[in-house]
């Protein structure tokens, strides 16, 4: 166990190093330059552009830029090119906003997928099973922005109630509980929309797992023992079907940083995904790279947690 942790730590460190190089190269070698170096501003002379390149270290050799970038990142001195704000501060600010969407979205996804998937598996080929299958395919194949628009138009036109942003505009005078509830309300639509795709996928997955498990011998044994149906499905079946999902739990961690670009943009939600997207448009390399790097770190931590969890829940596995 201890040796696994140490070994895995160093392996992941090496992986991280290569990821840092590749992501750095992808961003820096992609065509186009930061919007400050706007080649179509008629009044800019070559010397002016050169000054910007110097300021952003873009005139140095790539390896030196790489070194400077990571040095600044780890000493916390990295600043966004867009507004000269410290990158880590900006990311933390947005992270707090995205976190709520992530928590509520994940909660909805996992809480809804299990009952739906299990019920569909137990009542295989029933009307419920077929309609959820149909619905799942609909949800997977229709893009989420489309749903988002339909839902926004529906809610705004029917209830005449604001849904955009993190809170209703001009509510700052209201009592505390109203403000809290207002924020909760603004979470509802984007988190449900963000969760829809996940529910569709996860519930299918639960169903498949459950179906596989309830055809096992030990289920038959349990039935033969004369246990009630509920006990058979939930104590013997469900627990075993749960195993693969434990590993998945570690893998949802990176979703934190990716956020959901589309949902955040449509709902004017000031989150991570939107910041990353806007940074790409403005070619704000420090932000793009830092988000990229943090995502990589989270992926690696996620896989590590999955490994550990798997070991905890399944005693047969030794690492």
């Amino acid at each position, binding site marked *: 166990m201890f040796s696994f942790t140490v070994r895995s730590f160093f392996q992941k460190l090496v992986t991280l190093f290569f990821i840092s190089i590749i992501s750095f190269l992808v961003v820096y070698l992609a065509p186009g330059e930061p919007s400050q170096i706007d080649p179509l501003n008629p009044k800019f002379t070559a010397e002016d552009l050169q000054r910007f390149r110097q300021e952003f270290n873009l005139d140095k050799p790539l390896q030196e830029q790489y070194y400077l970038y990571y040095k600044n990142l780890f000493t916390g001195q990295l600043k966004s090119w867009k507004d000269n704000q410290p990158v880590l501060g900006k990311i933390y600010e947005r992270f707090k906003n995205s976190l709520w969407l992530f928590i509520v979205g994940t909660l909805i996804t996992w809480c809804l997928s299990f009952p739906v998937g299990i019920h569909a598996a137990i009542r295989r080929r029933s009307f419920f099973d077929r309609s959820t299958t149909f619905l799942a395919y609909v949800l997977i194949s229709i893009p989420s922005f489309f749903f988002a628009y339909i839902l926004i138009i529906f809610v705004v036109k029917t209830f005449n109630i604001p849904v955009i*942003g993190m809170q209703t505009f*001009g509510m700052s005078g209201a009592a505390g509980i109203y403000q809290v509830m207002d924020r*909760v309300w603004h979470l509802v639509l984007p988190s449900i929309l963000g969760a829809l795709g996940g529910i569709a996928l996860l519930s299918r997955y639960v169903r498949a797992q459950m179906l596989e498990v309830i055809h096992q011998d030990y289920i038959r044994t349990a039935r033969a023992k004369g246990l009630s149906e*509920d006990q058979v499905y939930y104590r013997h079946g469900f627990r075993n079907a749960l195993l693969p999902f434990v590993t998945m739990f570690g893998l949802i961690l990176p979703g934190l940083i990716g956020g959901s670009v589309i949902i955040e943009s449509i709902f004017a939600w000031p989150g991570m995904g939107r910041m990353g997207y806007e940074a790409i448009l403005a070619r704000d390399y420090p932000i793009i790279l830092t988000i990229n790097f943090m995502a990589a770190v989270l992926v690696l931590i996620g896989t590590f947690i999955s490994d550990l969890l798997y070991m905890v829940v399944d005693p047969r596995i030794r690492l």
Partner: protein
Amino acid sequence: MLIKKVLILLPVIIFVLLLQSFFWVPTYDEQVRGNPLRLEEFIIAAIGDARILNPILSADSSSSTIEAQVFDGLIDRDEELKFRGRLAAGWKIYEEVYFYFNPKAAVNGRIISGPETIRALLSQKDNITDVAIIPPQKGETDIQIAGPDTNGDGFPDPINLKVRFNAPHRFKVTLREVDQDFFTKMESVLGKGYFKTFQASDHVRIITEGHEDKLSAVAAQVLPATEHNPVIIFDLRKGVKFHDGHEFDSGDVKFTYEAIIDPKNLSPRVPDYEPVKYLEVIDRYKVKVVYKRLYFPAFGTWGMGMLPEHLLNPGAIKREAEAKGEDPAGFTLRDSGFNRHPVGTGPFVFREWKSDQYIVLDRHEDYWEGAPNYRSYTYRIVPDLLTQEMEFYGGAIDSYGVQPHQVERLKDDPAYQNFSGLSFGYTYIGYNMRRELFKDKRVRKALGMAIDTDKIIRYVMYDQAERITGPFVKQTDYYDRGIQPPPYDPEGALELLREAGWVRNSEGWLEKDGKRFAFTLITNGGNDLRKSILTIAQDAWKKIGIDVKTDIVEWSVFIGRHVNTGNFDALILGWSMGIDPDLYQIWHSSQSNQNQLNFVGFNNKEADDLIVKIRQEYDHDKQVEYCHRLHRIIADEQPYTFLYVGKWTAVLDRKIVIKEALPSGEEEIRKITPTRTGNYSFYFNKWIKLAENPVFEMER
């Protein structure tokens, strides 16, 4: 079974918790009813957030929108797009010209021995207010000239030279009005060639060894025979206060200028102020700006927002760096907290900025022109167009960048008023005139005649555009409305092409000397309008027998590989323009190298002359005359097929009106009407929202 119960109850509980919040949130109607102050708030939505709220550092439109409310410039443009004073109560423009006494030149057939005679000759002229003689000067100076590029960075390496000069008498002549033809006119007094025959190299010696061959270039730089120095004197408005109560004065103007040209600050405005020779504070309310050369567009740059010197001077910046625990040496204006909390003299005072959410401004009660009617101004960031529309319906925003098709939906709704006007920019097809194919202007004209631009405007632009025939802003008088665009006439186009030697072969393709008329038309990706035009042009040209391939290229590749290197046949692109008629960068033949903006390679001697004359002319009527001539040349040469100038559209709640206090003490309520040039928000500070829909006399 516990697990089963948990599995069913948990989602139910979560959903009940989430959805019950619905009942706590007020609908829009309740919001306004319970909150009459909403009528005094103006909320505008935009797609992108501001970057940096400092007028000398920002270059994006969101930041400029906010800066326009928080800061004031010395001048701006009035309803007719003419300049008017803001922080400057008035200004005076005159000129100082310099030239050297030329001991070798003959005046009226006689060699003049001393400068006094020349002073006497000049003093009689009526545009001249003063002639001063600067005594001969001796000295040494360091000068930097451009040498060959040895380190391969694409820029010439500077060479530093030490130079000794022994200058003759110099004249400083003050003119009442700027006159770019001064020296030509003076030749009638001092004799032809008086200025040209001045040999600067007779008075200069290069001390640094090994560079003697550069003498004439260096000498002309050290002792220029003639020099135009236009001068602007600004009289500043007295008693104007910054938002923190500090009074605005000439020190702030000087500081703003110096902050821009300070290389540490990396201001994107540096090129605007490069022509300034020096800026001098005459007294607390008077500033003198002297320019190195005649350059009229430089005047407009004083619309730049003025920064508060007392908050940003080096001492203040240093204190801020120390307070933040950063190294003062590397801490510049760019890093200052001011950029996220600006203080200006404008009609609105900055209150709060939540990144990617909103920026809130409060009205400036002591604004020198009278406080605005609105109590606050909020800039909301809603990155999605449809959501903006939804918020507008609900009344959570008062104004947004409405799209033409959205205007269609709202046009007949009595709850809204809408505006539209011409924007400052145009879309065109440019032909690479360096390529043999496009060298003949008949060919370029024929290509334009084959395209039905009116149909493009109708079907691609939903009629939200107008035709344009030249490179000037259409609503200014620089634009000559008498010039007609080439007609849509495919037959005529074929006729022109035949004159140029292109005839249809048996397959129907145009051919000349056995070569087919074929080229590639490109544009950038991500612009659906240009994509549609690309297809329409290709189809129109195919119809007259031209084999056109098309390509859509990602923006940075488009600029880097095609536009900047001149590696294209024809392209579709747009220019956005300033009001100033300066066409130097885009149309002057000297600007047609790599990475420059005359990428079509337009080269016309007469046009070059006019372009230079226009930027050196300070008299509006003469400028207009030159512009009309230039417009005619460009329309005749057809280096571009000028397609259209787009329209902007805007929608407001009809309850928003202009409210103004009349001298009699009564209040007058007027409908918002756009100015002659189409600016509907010109009187923004007088806008207010009424609780009821107003009824105006005219409408009954």
